[in-house]
């Protein structure tokens, strides 16, 4: 009978090691599918072996050794690969694995190649983040399916298809060349940003908490792997700032609370400090980028709420810089709000009405900003129309309630 607590703690420790084990097996030349199977087998042995003993201190080293032996076995058995000249000649040692002395060194962290693999341009963008959740964080298809609100078989099938493409189209498992790295990393950042955003709405929804938590975990892993890439640090900072406000975004009645009205006590100061650390590290590189600017804007809002400085005039300059780099509709709308604070609602409304962007009419924040400005200007009937649009375009109950009955 497996002790459920032991099972859970092994399971948790295992999941946090999963990505490192997979990445290292891949770096050592094993195919993705073989590596996955090998790690699964190593886990089964671990659970079996440790129901009566405590796991060794170098848990990962032990797991890797067992997994590698199994991977060698599997590769030899795979008839497609019998023709490969470079097969190793070690005999199967998986039954002897329990007595193997694990490597006292922690295993090297090769997870960058997993981040890059999952976001390779030839992989369907819709499956990139589920793939990251599976390969880097070791989640099962069933958990991932729940987070994406799709049936389990559908998600399992999509994941299998993506991995089949990796194998059959020979998407490389090696790291790309130095000069390709910035562009490839950008794709990783976009994917992580999208993942975090999935968990942004409905902040008290436990499933959304999990998606945001996973995105945070992934970005921080990436930041440790690529500390010299300031946009990675910038994204980590941005996410941590956003996450720090989770508890403040809804009140005790689960009603929507806008940034201006949030209770500072409910902000998580430890997350804010971590964000500041990342942002400071990023700015040392003196390579401004979109995520660093977004993080800087967040930092400015925190500071403004706490101390009154910087003012919206300074914040506006950050938005101008952001829009130069990334003229998204969201950024333009956020800038218009800041403009309204600095120069008045009339000025901001003029800019809003001059905004040219496809799809603006179906973009909820457009109507939210419009409603806000019209309310400030006292134009109740137009404001009501805008509120009604903002409400109808939102699926979040608290946000809908905020815009009226």
């Amino acid at each position: 009978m497996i002790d459920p607590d032991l099972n859970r703690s092994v399971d948790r420790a295992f999941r946090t090691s999963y990505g490192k084990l997979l990445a290292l097996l891949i770096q050592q030349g094993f195919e993705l599918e073989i590596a996955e199977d090998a790690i699964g087998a190593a886990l089964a042995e671990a659970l079996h072996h440790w129901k009566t003993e405590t796991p060794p201190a170098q848990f990962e080293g032990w797991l890797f050794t067992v997994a590698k032996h199994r991977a060698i076995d599997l590769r030899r058995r795979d008839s497609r690969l019998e023709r490969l000249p470079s097969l190793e000649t070690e005999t199967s040692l998986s039954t002897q694995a329990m007595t193997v002395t694990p490597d006292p060194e922690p295993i090297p962290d090769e997870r960058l190649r997993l981040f890059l693999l999952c976001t390779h341009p030839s992989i369907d963008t819709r499956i990139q983040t589920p793939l990251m959740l599976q390969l880097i964080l070791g989640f099962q298809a069933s958990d991932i399916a729940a987070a994406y609100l799709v049936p389990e078989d559908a998600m399992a099938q999509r994941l299998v298809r993506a991995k089949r493409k990796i194998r059959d189209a020979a998407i490389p498992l090696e790291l790309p060349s130095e000069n390709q790295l910035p562009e490839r990393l950008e794709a990783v950042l976009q994917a992580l940003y999208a993942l975090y955003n999935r968990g942004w709405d409905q902040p008290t929804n436990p499933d959304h908490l999990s998606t945001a938590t996973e995105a945070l975990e992934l970005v921080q892993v990436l930041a440790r792997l690529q500390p010299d890439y300031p946009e990675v640090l910038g994204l980590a900072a941005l996410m941590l700032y956003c996450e720090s406000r989770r508890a403040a975004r809804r009140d005790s009645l689960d009603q929507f609370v806008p940034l201006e009205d949030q209770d500072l006590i409910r902000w998580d100061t430890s997350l804010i400090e971590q964000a500041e650390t990342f942002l400071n590290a990023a700015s040392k590189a003196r390579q401004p980028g979109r995520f660093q600017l977004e993080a800087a804007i967040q930092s400015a809002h925190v500071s403004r709420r706490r101390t009154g400085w910087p003012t919206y005039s300074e914040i506006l300059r950050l938005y101008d810089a952001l829009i130069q780099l990334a003229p998204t509709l969201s950024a333009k709308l956020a800038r218009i709000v800041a403009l309204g604070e600095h120069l008045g609602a009339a000025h901001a409304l003029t800019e809003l009405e001059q905004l040219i962007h496809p799809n603006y009419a179906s973009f909820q924040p457009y109507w939210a900003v419009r409603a806000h400005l019209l309310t400030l200007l006292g134009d109740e009937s137009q404001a009501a129309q805008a509120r009604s649009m903002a409400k109808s375009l939102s699926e979040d109950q608290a946000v809908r309630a905020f815009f009226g009955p």
Partner: protein
Amino acid sequence: MTYSLLFYEVESEFARREGPDAPAYWGAWSSYIDLLAEEKALVPGNGAGLQPPSLATTVRVRSDQQQIQDGPFADTKEQLAGFVLLDVENLDIALRLAALAPCATTGAVEVRPIMPNP
């Protein structure tokens, strides 16, 4: 790994095959094939340029009836113009070489692995 590279061109590109631009058009393709050969990527004897889509005929058989239609399979802006087979180590290399094709800037190149030998 062997990949097919399927070259798709827009009508204006097909039109350059004759007339004053012809030397530039054919010169570009000739250089490209030479490049693939130099990179030892080209599987020789396994490629071809195709005549324009106006010379195509499409055949289908439905319920034992042959349906023969004038014209290419798909009525799209970009049409199949030629193909080669490349033997390279991985997809990234194939993609890099595909991006160098003369039609890549105005049309498209599809990169698809061929069936492995059983």
